[in-house]
């Protein structure tokens, strides 16, 4: 049956049909749905791991045992998993293993724009790159076959547009694959004496994979009708933009395998078409390969290193006429993302901003605390960096910073890589105050369970990390729990913990308001006779409160009745409906 699926769902389907038996991932936009969709299949094991390194090693263990396995992550997650990756290239696999990594050119939901293809080149691991949902499904199956044929993990690289665009796919049937585990220390124990013998095999493998790339159907030439005297080498979503602009009028070498790249195929294509353009988002991986192999191409001098492309980018580069359009003369105010009405993070941020605290931040919904009017954050780097960064900041700042600096980190991010930083604070004793914003879910990526929630990916009861007990056990002696809707309590505890001369943790605990079990209360309204237009409530930055005609108004479609604003108003102007 023909079905419209996002690339990630199609990829999940392909992995399933290929017999993937174990999948372990950490959520991250734009990769999350691969694992979420896979979790819907009942006859394969699926889990959220605490971080990408754990996920990749779990998948490796499953492959070693003889089952086809997968781990999925976003581009920055691959940094976390880079350690096992580089040595798995040496060990190879037993049953097939696939690593799905999703890049985010344009940074729709990421802190950088790194190009994951560099990892494939550096780790000498093959990488396939689908251009639509059907290819995502098909490439999953090919990736497992290559993994077993060439004894290597195989990457499937997605990007935001392929991951989150729906196109039509045809589904197939699932196969089962099992390989026997045979003890083989020379292959699987990567101590120097063994590893030194594996390295030449890796180089040989790359030679063999290059030979495969020359004739593989993954890389194909689409002959143009001769309207243009040039050809284009491209891959992934850029291929779609090229076809949108040129249709069948130009010859295209469409690469489905981006590492290792073919040599002769590219030389033959270039000889046939004359001038060659390379069109690839982000870094010049294909372009550099062409140039190293003596093929003259035009690439990044014409196409940006930055952001996403589109048909417009390509039309402009070839000086094709722009489409007619209409603009407005009035400037349209920006509409940035923000924390939801009733978000528990807002209360803690309000207290931090009010007390002019320096706040080292982390990755999640709560990064939005950096936006006006709260402007509550000073730094955001990567998963876990708030905690370790705070330790260094206070070691450098000493008494100048210790009593007016905190870090904030979500429950899921704390599990991912915050706990190691906290161990460092306890071990090397910095006078630091760590705030864990525990909203009982992984929020930003769309509500995934994590080790602190007590549920697994299927929503079934699971092991549950007790944050307070964890903090005590690693040597933090002062651990406080506050309700971020209670601003007075938050402020009191914050001041007390900052004043202490020892490491401390404040757990700011209230579940995300978007969770199904959190029932919204009746929305509030503003009594216009009481409101004096002082705008104190506007400093809270709740999207449900606006200022119209001299006083505050509440949007009852957004308000969830948390009532925190009512406590801020000196004139008791916020009222519950019907009271």
């Amino acid at each position, binding site marked *: 049956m023909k079905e*419209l699926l996002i690339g990630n769902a199609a990829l999940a389907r392909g992995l399933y049909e290929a017999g993937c038996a174990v999948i372990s991932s950490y959520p991250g936009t734009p990769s999350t749905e691969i694992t979420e969709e896979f979790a819907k299949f009942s006859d394969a094991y699926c889990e959220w791991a605490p971080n990408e390194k754990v996920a990749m090693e779990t998948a490796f263990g499953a492959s070693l045992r003889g089952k086809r396995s997968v781990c999925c992550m976003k581009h920055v997650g691959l940094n976390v998993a880079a350690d096992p990756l580089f040595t798995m290239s040496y060990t190879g696999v037993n049953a097939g293993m696939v690593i799905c990594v999703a890049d985010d050119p344009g940074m729709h939901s990421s802190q950088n724009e790194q190009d994951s293809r560099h990892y494939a080149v550096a780790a000498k691991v093959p990488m396939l790159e689908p251009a639509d949902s059907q290819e995502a499904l098909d490439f999953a199956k090919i990736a497992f076959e290559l993994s077993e044929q060439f004894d290597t993990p195989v990457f499937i690289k997605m990007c935001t547009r392929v991951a989150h665009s729906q196109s039509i796919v045809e589904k197939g049937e699932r196969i089962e694959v099992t390989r026997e585990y045979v003890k083989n220390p020379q292959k699987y124990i990567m101590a120097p004496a063994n590893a030194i013998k594996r390295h030449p095999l890796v180089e040989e493998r790359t030679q063999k994979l290059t030979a495969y790339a020359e004739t593989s159907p993954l890389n194909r030439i689409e002959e143009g009708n001769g309207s243009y005297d040039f050809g284009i080498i491209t891959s992934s979503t850029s291929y779609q933009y090229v076809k949108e602009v040129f249709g069948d009028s130009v010859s295209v070498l469409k690469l489905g395998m981006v590492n290792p790249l073919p040599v002769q195929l590219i030389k033959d294509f270039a000889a046939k078409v004359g001038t060659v353009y390379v069109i690839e988002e982000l870094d010049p991986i294909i372009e550099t390969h062409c140039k190293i192999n003596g093929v003259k191409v035009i690439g990044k001098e014409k196409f940006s290193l930055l952001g996403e492309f*589109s048909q417009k980018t390509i039309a402009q580069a070839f000086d094709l006429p722009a489409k007619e*359009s*209409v603009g407005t003369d009035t400037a*349209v105010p920006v*509409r940035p993302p923000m924390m939801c009405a009733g978000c528990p993070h807002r209360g803690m941020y309000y207290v931090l901003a009010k007390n002019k605290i320096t706040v080292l931040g982390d990755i999640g919904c709560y990064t939005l605390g950096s936006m006006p009017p709260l402007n509550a954050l000073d730094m955001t780097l990567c998963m876990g960096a708030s905690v370790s960064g705070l330790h260094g900041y206070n070691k450098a700042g000493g008494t100048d910073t210790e009593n007016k600096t905190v870090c904030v980190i979500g429950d899921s991010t704390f599990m991912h890589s915050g706990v190691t930083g906290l161990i460092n604070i306890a071990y090397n004793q910095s006078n630091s105050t760590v705030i864990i914003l525990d909203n009982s879910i992984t929020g930003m990526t769309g509500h995934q369970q994590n080790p602190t929630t007590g549920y697994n990916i299927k929503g079934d009861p699971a092991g549950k990390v007790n944050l307070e007990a964890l903090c005590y056990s690693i040597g933090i002696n002062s651990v406080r729990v506050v309700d971020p809707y209670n601003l007075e309590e938050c402020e009191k505890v914050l001041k007390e913990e900052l004043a202490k001369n020892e490491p401390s943790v404040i757990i700011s605990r209230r579940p995300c308001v978007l969770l199904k079990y959190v029932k919204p209360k009746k929305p509030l309204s503003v009594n216009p006779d009481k409101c004096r237009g002082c705008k104190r409530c506007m400093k809270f930055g709740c999207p449900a409160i606006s200022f119209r005609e001299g006083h505050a108004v509440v949007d009852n479609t957004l308000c969830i009745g948390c009532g925190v604003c009512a406590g801020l108003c000196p004139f008791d102007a916020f009222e519950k409906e019907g009271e």
Partner: protein
Amino acid sequence: MASKNIMIVGVGGQGSLLASKLLGRLLVDEGYDVKVSEVHGMSQRGGSVVTYVKFGDKVYSPVIEEGEADFIVSFEKLEAARYIRNLKKDGTVIVNTQQIDPMPVIIGSTAYPAGILDEITAKGVQVDAIDALSLASEAGSAKACNIVLMGRLAKYFDIPYEKWESAIEKIVKPAFIEINKKAFALGYNN
């Protein structure tokens, strides 16, 4: 046929994903090649969101660029203005007259532009404005704005009404089918 392009724009949380799901289901059932491109993740948190729906004999690029949209369906007034450049010269804007203040307006650093729809209309753009929030409430849920607007969009298509209804039945949870059908009818008939 050349591909037809529909942009669905609005504010994160307004239900644009369900609207694009409805269109996707309908257009696949009609036998078209279809691509739908969505935004997930950070932009969904109350930010400006955009979904592209393209259909035809063969669709390549999943995105809609400047001057390419046959229709812009906007769930909020300001968002219609934000993406107006994407409209084809003879395209149509279907817009919910609801106003949702963005954060710069909430904190008073800028004003919500008055008369923004009049300005667009004055430029010769065909603007079909509709109070979808009231109609959705009439149907039984303020959240059904998305389907009210799909009902209005349906008027511009030659696809039979029953096909739209059957697509609603396929994508909406059973408990909400009646409300959504009512919302669709109110958008279609008002």
